[in-house]
């Protein structure tokens, strides 16, 4: 079973029955769309789902005492760069401080959208994020692994020079956590794929 994309909405002024949430649930499955009104709780959810395929829809102002979007995205990036973040705001774009915008860009927000935008525009940004999640090395690898029999997945697949062994499932986690091994694997896989593509008989 391939892990589905999960969507976390961090918004202090949205209800569970909001049409945006209903539309997203319709498309991505009820159990895969979650609303968190407090950003601190949202952050701990993210912390516990670092290896999931996660898209975060993040409101800008999140109430007194709660970290606001620029801080939230910074905290997310301290842990992982694999989660896609889309900012939603009722603020006039021109009134967003430069510091906040710099934080969004430097911390790779996938998009920023006004709270009065059409649902379909928000959904299309989410779709874009979902597509990127699906075409990433870790996700494609996961799809491939998912097709292997259980015993193959559980047996050591790779042994490092220092003697540590990794199963296929372990490797996905290494890639998602962006460990040194994970990054090396990712590069290797891409290089190999390109070599295959250019050397082979050009059939996908």
């Amino acid at each position: 079973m391939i892990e589905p994309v999960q969507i976390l909405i961090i918004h202090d002024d949205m209800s569970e029955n909001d049409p945006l949430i209903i539309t997203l649930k319709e498309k991505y499955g009820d159990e895969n769309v979650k609303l968190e009104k407090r950003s601190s709780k949202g952050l701990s959810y993210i912390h516990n789902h670092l290896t999931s395929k996660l898209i975060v829809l993040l409101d800008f102002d999140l109430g007194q005492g709660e970290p606001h979007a620029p801080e939230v995205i910074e905290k997310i990036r301290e842990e992982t760069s694999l989660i896609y973040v889309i900012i939603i705001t009722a603020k006039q774009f021109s009134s967003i401080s430069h510091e906040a915008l710099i934080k969004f860009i430097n911390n790779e927000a996938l998009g920023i959208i006004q709270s009065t935008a059409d649902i379909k525009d928000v959904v299309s940004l989410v779709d874009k994020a979902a597509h990127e999640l699906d075409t990433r090395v870790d996700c494609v690898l996961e799809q491939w692994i998912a097709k292997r029999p259980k015993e193959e997945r559980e047996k050591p697949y790779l042994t490092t020079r220092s003697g540590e062994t990794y199963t296929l499932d372990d490797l996905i986690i290494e890639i998602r956590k962006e460990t040194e091994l994970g990054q090396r694997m990712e590069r290797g896989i891409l290089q190999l794929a390109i070599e295959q593509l250019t050397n082979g008989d050009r059939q996908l």
Partner: protein
Amino acid sequence: MPDSQNILKWRFDVNTFRLLGRELITDRITAVYELVKNCYDANAKKVTVSFENVGKDAEGKAVITIEDDGHGMSFEDIRDKWMVVGTASKRTELFSPAPFNRRYVGEKGIGRFAVDKLGGRVRIITNQAGSDKRLVVVIDWDEYERLSKEPQLELFTDVPNDFHWEKAPVEEQGTILEISSIPEHEVWTDLDIRRLERELEKIVSPFFPLNPPFNIWIKSNENKEFNEKLIQAETVKFSSHEFSIGFNIEDGVQETLAFDKDKKAIAIDKIPMKSFGPVKLHIFYFNEKAKKKYNAAYKNDDYRVDGVKIYRDGLITTPFAEFEQNRDKKRDILGIEKRRWSSAFDKIGTREVIGILEITNDDNPEIRDATNRQDFVDCKEYRDLKEFIIAQLNVLSELKKHERDVVKEEVDSALLKANIEIKEFESAIADIKRENPTLKTALQPLLKQAKQIDRSLKRGIQQQQKERQEHVRKENIYLSLMSLQDYAIHISHAVRTALGKVKRRAEFFKDNFPNPKYDDLFTDYSIEIYEEMANLNRIIDFMLSYAGSNIDMEDFNVRDLLIDLFERAYRPEFEAENIQIQVEIKDNFIIHANKKFFEDIIENLISNSVKALRNESNKIIKCTGFIENDHFILYFSDNGEGIIPGDEEKIFEMYHTTTADLGGAGVGLYIVKTRAESLKGSISVDRSEFAPKGATFKISFPFNKEI
């Protein structure tokens, strides 16, 4: 390993020197400042910045020299550190060796390129303690400039720079930067040098003397004032008040300023340590009188009274030394002036205080410089620190307000006294006249004049009272308008959020209706759209209440108004909801305020309580009012579902609601709070009168009998 044929390397065009020097350093004063900071890092005890022939008749003979007695540099230091861009050697160690223990300030290793901003050629003469020779390196930026214009590619790293050795006394140590080839148009006027002095005098905290010292001298052969002048922060003169707060790490206690309302003076309170760690603050306040004295002495040049500066381990961190002559353009990173704009007249601004806030690297690790050196990194701790500073200034504001009141009283009583004295004078003359009728003619003009003075005085007193009323009226209008700017931001946010909600629901209808699967949602959405529109309406009404005559003040009887609201206007609603009312307004008095705002407060509190009581069987709303000192206090309570602990502050935010199911938009208590503030009052959550159930709000308005 890739074939050496197949690799590419970065190279730097000769233009790099410009990027690192004149284009990165914003102005000449900052350039000198950066170089002086390098001397600090070299453990210098003395730095001399000399200007020779830099005036307008210099004819190209201008030289600027920066000489220090620091540890100097070896050939290796120059080759492997000084001349390597971005050397990180300083970054691996945070502090220089004992006895200096200075925290390195030139962290990025580019300050040395500041010389390019000052002149086209630099001679570096350096020697280390114990060495009998000094190293002389010549860097000719003019040559770099020439090469950068050549058509062929010249690399920054390929330009040769000459060096040689000279004999030197063994006891000599330190570094001299001799900058020449200064463009003729870049004259350093006396004013420029004085500006430099002002910036340099702020480098070291006046209250955290460095040991060993770091003394900076300025020398100029063209200006007698700078014959050989030690730069030191001038002792603060003329301030009217001076306060100093500290901390106690063992007890986890931070000191803070507090205004003692009984003693009408500033006291020092102890509070638990804040998130940003312990800080010391030395603050000088200049009241109006002091400011006048100050301006007379310094001829209105008020650059020294420049707000709060932050020093880390004795060295300035902010405001960062970027020279800006126009004070209004200075960056207000602590948000002191912004807050003034958005609030009242009694607030303290940067031109009324000199504050020295001391932090240390060890105790306040979360207060970090932003990489652009223009602020600190935004984080909770820094925000808390800013709040702390503002809180200190707010205490000074209360002092300022108190002093203004005292002056008002003094003037009033002096006028009154003068009036009485004139009366006494008149009756004394009348007595003399009666006793000595012969003097009548002689005394007549005197009496006439006394009467005239009496009339003028009375007119003066009347005029003064009228002016004061007019002033209060204008101040009130102005205050409302200023808050309007804040409201505009809130309201546009509120309107957009409401519109977004309505629009998404409408869009859902448009895309999905009819569809039996969503029938329940359609019903919900239509109700929500209706309620959201009603909220929008309320928001717009609230906004419009600022338009037209509504901001005028009027006299009204508070008791009558409250009784009218509770027993007449809201009676039908209370009866329908089966709510019992207890209204006890002890004092009967008239206040001069905006009646509409006052009504808004009560109406919104009532509507808030009605919602909170929805699941209660025995519903009570209680309102108690009385005068306490110079405030009118109102307690407003209900025995409803109460406030979730921890939400006491949050409930006043716009859009905070716990009654969304009843169409609560979270606007009501926001209106209550902003209205109360517009009337110069305050609102807070008190212990519930109906505890463990219910909620009690305490609202306090200043009550000035004179108005």
